[in-house]
Structures are given as C-alpha cells and as structure tokens.
C-alpha cells in the first residue's frame, strides 16, 4: 500500500546535479592526475639531458597555436550559449569555428614536430628532453584529437538537424572536456615554453 518508507516531512535532497557533468568532472580530475605526473617528470628532467638538442636551442614559442586554442574555449562557450537559447545556426557556426581553431592547433603542433624531428634531429629517443617533450605535448595533442573527433561528430549531427536546445546539457558536458583540454595547454605551455626554456 504505502510507499516503502514512511516520511513525515518529505524532503528533497535539492535538485540533484546533472550526472553527465558530475561524471565529466570526475574524468577531468582523473585525467589531471595523469597530466600532473607527466608535468612532474618534465619539471624533474629540465636541464638533465646529457647530449642532443636543448630546449633553448630548438624550441620556438608557439604563439599562434596558443592563441587559437585558448580562443576556441571562448567560441565553444558562445556556441553553448547559443544552443541554450535554441539558436541552431549560431550554435553550428561557433562550433565550426571551434573545430577550425582546434585543427589549426593540431596542424601547428604537427609542423613544430616536423621541424624538430627533421631539422633539429630531436626524437623521442634522442635525450631526456625529447622523451619528456614528446610525451607531454603528445599526451595533450591526443586529448585535442579526441576532443576534435567528438566536436566534429556533434557538428555533423547539427548540420543534419539532429540537435536541438534539449541537448544543451549534453553539449555543455562535452564543452567542459574541451575547456579542460585548453586549461591543460596553459599548464603545458608554462612548463615547456616558459619554465623549461
């Protein structure tokens, strides 16, 4: 007859947090721990390479890349806002810009690696700098790639009209991941191109 439990005063635990967002935040915390280990290794090995190219000699500060990636955080926020207000065209446009900016970053990184490998002779095996540099930047780049794949999938769905304002919480969750990727770049940039150089 009765509900399983008697309750004199019905109390709600309040509005429970969106589970997608909670899950994403947990994933971000876990991933941050992975990154911090690689960052620690990078910091620990600064200046310990016994031979081969040193950061000062070969690294150039990737200003354009950084500007692109950081501004993509802004553009994805604009697209989040657009979908919240059900402005599909604006959403798709800003999402497209985000993807473009992310792609520029990836191409830029690829270009940087090409130069380092073929002109400066710095590979993963060369020395400790190569080991820590390629693993840390590569780890970040792989996150950018995963993020881009998801963004492109979302964009394709939006282009074919499968996205509506009802999906905005889901999209915010995805955007959260992208913001995380950008925030990590700030750390990587500081460690690799400012402190380590």
């Amino acid at each position, binding site marked *: 007859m009765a509900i399983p*439990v008697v309750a004199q005063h019905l109390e709600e635990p309040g509005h429970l947090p969106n589970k997608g967002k909670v*899950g994403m935040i947990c994933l971000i915390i876990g991933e941050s721990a992975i990154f911090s280990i690689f960052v620690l290794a990078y910091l620990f090995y600064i200046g310990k390479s016994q031979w081969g190219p040193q950061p000062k000699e070969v690294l150039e500060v990737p200003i354009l890349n950084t500007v692109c990636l950081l501004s993509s955080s802004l553009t994805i926020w604009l697209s989040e806002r657009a979908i919240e207000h059900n402005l599909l065209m604006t959403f798709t446009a800003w999402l497209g810009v985000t993807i473009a900016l992310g792609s520029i970053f990836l191409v830029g990184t690829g270009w940087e690696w090409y130069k380092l490998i073929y002109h400066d002779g710095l590979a*993963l095996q060369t020395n400790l700098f190569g080991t820590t540099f390629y693993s840390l930047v590569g780890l970040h780049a792989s996150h950018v790639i995963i993020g881009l794949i998801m963004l492109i999938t979302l964009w394709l769905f939006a282009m074919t009209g499968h996205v509506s304002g009802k999906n905005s919480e889901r999209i915010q969750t995805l955007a959260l991941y992208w913001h995380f990727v950008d925030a990590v770049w700030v750390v990587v940039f500081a460690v690799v191109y400012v402190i380590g150089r």
Partner: protein
Amino acid sequence: MADASLPIGSLDLTPEALAEGTFREYLHGWVTTVDHKRLGILYVLYALFFLVVGGAEAMIIRVQLMYPDNHFVSPEVYNRMFTMHGTTMVFLMGMPLLFGFANYLVPLMIGARDMAFPRLNALSFWLTAFGGILLYYSFIGGFGLYGQGSAPDVGWFEYAPLTTRTYSQGHAVDFWALSLFVTGWGTLGAAINIITTTISMRCKGMTMMRIPLFCWLLLCTSALTLVAITPLTAAQVMLELDRYLGAHFFDTQAGGSALIWAHFFWIFGHPEVYILVLPAFGVANEIIPVFSRKPAFGYTAMVAASVGIVFISLGVWAHHMFTVGMTSAANAFFTLSTMIIAVPTGIKVFNWIATMWGGKLRFATPMLFAATFVVHFLLSGLTGIMLSASPWDWQLHNSYFVIAHFHYVLVGAIVFSMLAGIYYWFPKVTGRLMDEKLGKWHFWLFLIGFHLTFDFLHVPGILGMPRWVYTYEASRGWASWNMIASVGGFIQFLASGIFVWNLLYSGLHGAEAGPDPWDAWTLEWATSSPPPEYNFAVEPVVASRRPLWDLKHPSDTDTQYE
C-alpha cells in the same frame, strides 16, 4: 530471452523458468547485462576466483619457505609467484571485490534503480576481466624477443632499473604494465560511476548526510581512486615508452632516474592501501550497528574522518622509500604526515567501539568477522606507527616485519571485513542465509590460521629475514618461525575451502532469508531478496538515516532527532 535473463533467482517463484531457456541464452543474459546487481555479482565472483588463484600462489611461497634450503620450486618460478601473488591480490582481487560490493549495494542503499552509467559499468567490469586474463596469459604467452621471460617476476612494484630492456628481456614486464593499464581504465570507469551515482541518483529525502556510511566510504574510496590509479597509468605509459620506443624516463644511462619510478609508483601505491581499506571500514560501519542494536556512533565524525584520510593519504607515499636516501627534511615530513593518519583512523576505531559499547551484541558470523576486523586493524595500525618512524623503518625496511604488518592490514583487516560483508549481504543477493555452523568453522579456523601466520612472521623480520628471499640457511634461526607461518597458511587455505563450500551449499540449500533477515535499517533490506531488476517498485522516500527503523517504529521515528 525473456526468462533466461532474469537475475539468478529474482523473486521469481517459478525457478523452473530458468531451465526453459537454453544455457546459451542464460549466458548471453549475463554477458550483455547492464544491471548493477548482476555486474556486482560478476565482480565479486571474479574477485573470489582470483582470491583462490592468488591464495594458491601464496601457498607455493609458504611451502618453499617452510624449510631452510628448500627447493620446492625454482628461484625463477618463486620470483613469478611473489610478483603475481601481490599483483593479483591488489588489482584482480582487492579492487574488483570492493567494486563488486559498491556496484551491488550503493544503488540499493541510496534508493536508486541503477548506477548512473549502466553501460560504462559493464565496460568497466569487462575491461577489468579481460585485463586480468591478459595478465595471466603471460604464463603461456609471455616469451618475448629473446625467447625469455614468462609471467612478471620483478616484484609487484616493478622497480626500475630492473624493468629496463637490459635486465628484463622478455615481455614479462610489458605484460604487467599493459594488462594493468587495461584494468586501470576499468577501475577509473567504476570510480567515476560510483561517485556520480552517489551524487546524482539519490532518492527523495536522501541528503548527503543521510546516506549510509558505507556509501560515504565508497564515495571516498572512489574519489581516491580517481587521483591514485591514474598516476600508475601514466607511469606505466612511461615505462612502455622506455621499453618499446627507447625513451629515457627511467634510463639511468641517459640521465634518467630510477628513483622517480619509485615515487610515481608509491604516489599510487600508498593511496591504494586506503582504496582497499576504506570499503572495509564501510562494511564494518553497516554491520556493527545492526548487530549491536544501536545506531552508528558519531556519523558526522566518521564522515569527517573518512574525508580526512583521503586527503592525508595523498601526502605520505614516500614512507615506502625511507631507505633510498631522501633528505632528512623529507624523512621528517613523511614520518609526521604518516603519523597524523593515526588521528582520523583513531576516531574510527573509537567510534566502532563506542557503537558496540552497551549495545545488545549478537555474534552471528558477520559480526564475528566485523568485530575481529576492528581488533586486527588496531594492531596493524600500531605496527604501522612503528614503521612510520624513519629510523625504525631503516632497520626493518623490506623485511618480513613489513610483510607481516601489511598482511595484517590486508588480510586481518580488509579480508576479514569483506568476508563479514559477504556473510551479511549473501541473503540479500541469493535470498538464502549462509550456514551459521560452517560460518563459525570458517571464522575460527581462519582466525587461528591468520594469527599463526602473521603474528609469527613479525619475528623473522626482526631477526633480519628480507622479503622476496628465495630460501635461507638453517643457521639463521628463521626455520621454526617459517614453519609455524606455513602451517598457519595451510589452515587459512583450508578455512577458505570451507567458505567456498558454504557459498555453494547455502546458495542452493540455505534457509530462506526473507527480505530483512538481520532486522537492519538501511534501504537495501526494504526490497525482496534478491531484489527485482528495478530494485524498488516505487521509488523510496526517506526522512532519516535509518529509513527502516522509522518503518518498524512508527511511533518513535528517527526523524524527530534530526
């Protein structure tokens, strides 16, 4: 399909229905399930299987050490045994067991119908399962480049530079790193799922300060897992980059540091101990109040202490490394931070005793195990405090004293508590009570065996017997201690046999349990045993920490005291 995929004996009054589906359909139901209860059962069965496997490896170690100058197994096999014993018990037994408990119980306890991400839950389990299979495949498929190597054999913490290509030529180390890389993602998924479930899936009225302490402890464990298992994953990636692509992370020839592996490993390794022990706390927190007929003493203090342990345990890892020659500042820091953990754990021990004090105690098998857990945890904590003082550790590091200390935690505290949990929730899972008589036999034999083994192992440690030693000369004076420890080991193995028999026998012929055999107070006892697929026909609403108390004593509910 319809009948075949019922959870084993859900409250189906016609169990013959199961027989109608073919075995293949039945199996299909288990393989494709996303039901948190079935995945919980799978986790626990998987863990119990590896408990037997890891236990058998321990037996081989004990036989080898029984006599001086023994050659029961070759040194190579012996190395594989202790490496695989440690790895198995931590990664394939301990964590799956706790995630099994969490999977089955957390949604029931907070009044939810499933985990937050049911498919991720399935993925996490199967990653753990396949990772374990991959690890054990190394016994037959482990030969590598030079036809050498088999199972991992350089100790469960795989210290560099022993893991470099130079010293470990086969694929044994790669098997260790990569299979645990796979299970690591499964673990991460499970942790995310448990946290999200606890935060986002609570039923009406189930505020955070009303969820059962078990759920709080699992929340803390999962939070710790998030930040502890991932550093190991990162370190394993580095190790594999070293071994496959010629990177230099742990390559001392190129300026790399072997020590940094130790740091990375123990950044994971110490919190891991707390990942394993916090659920054991949670189980005790559920069982002790019910069998003392009193509410848990100091709920908020317990929560605060648990959260405190999570944070402090992240800053103590280097107490495993006192002998590597850190600065005296680092030694002092890690000594002090380790000792501070005694405060929150002290609060816990104290609260359990306070819960029992003046209560109407009833020592059914679950309570026997849970009460013993408290005693063992206290004793292991005392040797832990001894070892946390760096000078003491310099003397006893990597000796059998350390082995005895951490087995006191892992077996005496964690295994005892988890066994208590199995005896306690078995009726909920199967609808049948476990046999009390067999349970008592199991308890007393296991207790005697445990004390014979691990009490007496402290002594050869003080006498200088190092861990991982293959054998020893008679003149060392360690022989009789080892003999006693081995005999105790066999008694524990025998007791575990009784336990397995009890599981099988009671699962088929045990007395009907009914929904609430222990007269308990948390929500999982408000539904039938075993619970239906959807847990609760109507979503429950709670108004206090002990919803079933309120139901049973409508004139005197807990709500008026909150």
